[in-house]
């Protein structure tokens, strides 16, 4: 598989996701510096987590204007799978590839811990293999919000990729870590080739992590 990981100044999960992809697919992803303007033929583009430009402005706002993003948007529209994780999700929203907004967690503090998610849409290239899965979140702004019209569109078009849930797959406020609307942990675009998600599958992709559930997302793309 030919994959690409975009590196912004302030990205800090770029290496982690590249290691996960390499371990799972056997192929080393190519790292793409944000100042570049085009990506070669690709089977998967990853916009990784971190604090692009320090996130001193609204998270992801600066990164969405980086030179490389024009080509990411173009490739996404051509149907290339694009995965945004955490800060990458925020960047994809700021780039207009995904709907909604990510606000500050309702606890008003950074949260780093394991959560459970389940896939709502099980037909996309990313979500074929995931049932209930455990993986960590680590963010300050992961509280998903959408207007009622946006939410209706997201629901009608089956764009909810993942929802926070409990061990039995029940979706409720008890299992919602950050106040996200409808417990949304990840959404797809209308064509289902762009996924943005707050949890970090690359941090649950190796026995040493104590959990390998995150692998299912990468395996889903590979198959």
């Amino acid at each position, binding site marked *: 598989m030919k994959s690409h990981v975009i590196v912004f*100044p*302030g990205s*800090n*999960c770029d*290496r*982690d996701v590249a*290691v*996960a992809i390499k371990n799972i697919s056997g192929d080393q992803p190519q790292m793409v510096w944000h100042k570049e303007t085009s990506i070669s033929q690709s089977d998967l583009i990853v916009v990784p*987590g*971190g*604090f692009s*430009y*320090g*996130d*001193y402005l609204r998270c992801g706002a600066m990164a969405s204007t980086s030179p490389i993003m024009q080509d990411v948007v173009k490739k996404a529209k051509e149907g290339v799978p694009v995965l945004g994780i955490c800060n990458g999700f925020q960047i994809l929203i700021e780039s207009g590839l995904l709907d909604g907004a990510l606000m500050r967690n309702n606890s008003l*503090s*950074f*949260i*780093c*811990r394991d959560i459970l998610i389940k896939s709502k849409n099980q037909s996309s290239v990313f979500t074929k293999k995931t049932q209930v899965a455990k993986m*960590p979140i*680590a963010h*300050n702004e992961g509280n998903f919000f959408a207007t009622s019209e946006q939410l209706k569109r997201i629901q009608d078009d089956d764009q909810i990729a993942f929802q926070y849930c409990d061990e039995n797959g029940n979706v409720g406020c008890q299992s919602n870590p950050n106040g996200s609307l409808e417990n949304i942990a990840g959404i797809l675009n209308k064509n289902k080739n762009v996924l943005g998600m707050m949890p*970090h599958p*690359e*941090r649950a*992709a*190796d026995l*040493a*992590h*104590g959990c390998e559930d995150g692998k299912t997302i990468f395996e889903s793309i590979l198959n």
Partner: protein
Amino acid sequence: MTNHNWQFQTEQSLVENHGLKLDEFEKIVEGLGREPNLTELGIFSAMWNEHCSYKSSKFWLKKLPTSGERVVQGPGENAGVIDIDDGDVAVFKMESHNHPSFLEPYQGAATGVGGILRDVFTMGARPVANLNALRFGEPEHPKTKHLLSGVVSGIGGYGNCIGVPTVGGEVNFHPSYNGNILVNAMTVGIAKKDKIFYSAAAGIGNPVVYVGSKTGRDGIHGATMASAEFDDDSEEKKPTVQVGDPFTEKLLLEACLELMKEEAIIAIQDMGAAGLTSSSIEMASKGDVGLEIDLSKVPMRAQNMSAYELMLSESQERMLMVLDPSKEEMARDIFKKWDLEFEVIGKVTDTKRLILIMNGKEEASIPINILVEDAPEYQRDYIVEEPSPIKEYKSEDFDQNNILKDLNTMIMHPDLSSRKWIWEQYDHMVMADTVVRPGSDAAVVRVHGTNKGLAMSTDCSPVYCKHNPYEGGKHAVVETWRNIIASGALPIAITDCMNFGNPEKPEIMGQFVECIRGMGDACSKLNYPVVSGNVSLYNETNGEGIYPTPAIGGVGLIKDLSNVKTLSLKEDGNFLCVVGKTANHLGSSKYISIIQSKEEGGTPEINLDTELRNGNFVMDAINQKLIASAHDVGEGGILVAISEMCMSGNLGIIIEIETNFPHGYFFAEDQSRYLIEVSPNNYDECQKLSNNNDVHFEKIGIVGGDKISIKNIGDQHISALKRSFETGIKQISQ
């Protein structure tokens, strides 16, 4: 305090405001052969304050053992370096940021983290873990909530953004910190043994290069502030606190590591306390050369900055380097790529002087040796006070029916309760190599791309130190040693962060001397040397000193990650056993302080021979794969330790052991003890191993169920205990 014999042209008040004593000023005049100008006075003030010169502590620090077969670099560089096999080294240090954090908790703590990260990556290491050691005033003190929330979000704000996991730490609450909290930050990094970078400048004529952020007027005199006591007007010192920019530090980290792959850097030094002053002087002194710097070339954030301000600014995220001149353009390109400042501001000279030029005019010319070798060094008077007497407690004085109720109260107390509220605000998993997360004895981080790991722990019990500084010093070292062993690692070396009150008071100096003596004895016995450290004195407010707090950060190596142990109970039917004797020492225990609201009974003593034997036994048993889980018995005693194992593993236990002094057995803080979970199949083997090594080993109970049941006493559901455990610290923040 006007001295009528003042015979100098320089105003006496100006000298005093720079934190210099009269005889120190006389020494400057003697060294220079003239009176210093203002810029020079500022430079001396920055170099000769306690924080930079270690003038009160140097004599005693030299007594600590600092060598060992795995020590690559001991104290004296930016951080210590130890060999972790295969050509890899671990680089680590702990440093205090106490005074700034009390004035402005978020920025104080954040820049503390930023500073210690720079110390580590300056040496060529990629930081892989952050830890901390925090002390706050009593939970109900009106400032505690604000300080706790501010410090925790500051540590998280910096570490999370730069992308280095904060994997461990410790926190205490005690009234002695009401007016002077302690924020000690530790960073551990990994480098290649043949790619370590040092600060000694070399090569006459080589360019001196400034990289990173621009210099502003922030933090001027920070180090001098950190070397003075607090009083009620200390809030006015807020402008001396620096402001951190973790994003720029991330760029600086990546740019430096990228440049370090090339053979370009001859010397490198971060600009920490006393900024450009200490970094340039450090480089010149280590290299036994001179430096000439043109201050007009320093990238400036503010207009019309004077030489004095430029030399004393503590603006963050800056580095000074001496480069191979043929690599200058290549280096410039790397820093340009990362959008960072890169400016040649001077050159290495053979004058052995620091010469500063600004707009063509000489602003300072000082022989380096006067600043460094001739810096004042004091052997301060000290008094060693009698340790608090050890009290014998008797079974009759306690009601055994209260055991479980007391346990519940204890684990709800902020000193013993879950630290989850804190560590969930830290990204403890970024870099995807965290193997054991916060909440166990030691955190374990995998060495990237290998099957080995580093175990790390920070510790200190200030109450033990206060009541017996010698035993307290030993304890702080030994506690990290035990934590590292319980996690399955071989302990290698420590860093220390010595937080004390005013050293000019003989009884405070006595605490310092005794803590050092205890630490030194423990380090020698356990072959566990000190490789780096930091001293923070004058932690006093309105004349009241903090408890002596020698915080220790220990690092160990796990050669095979399959040997990692956590404290979680693993399986129904396993035996829980205790290693080490329990002798009912309740003095200075959490039981006495939390349940009886007293601080009495003396510090538990540590027999270092027993400590070594017990530790080696646990290490052997782990390496022979005889143990399912392990936990050291620390503050709170055996029952608190058992509860932690039960809550973490979501498993109960039936405690069968019979004792005629239940409170003594369950809550005493006798030292050198561990709890280990052993399967029935391995029990005989463990017992044999313990007998052969003269180690006290006894079965306490059987793992299983969802309750802690104590024979003849009663039982308690794990879920109920968990609710209590989770409330302690969270309550302060609400």
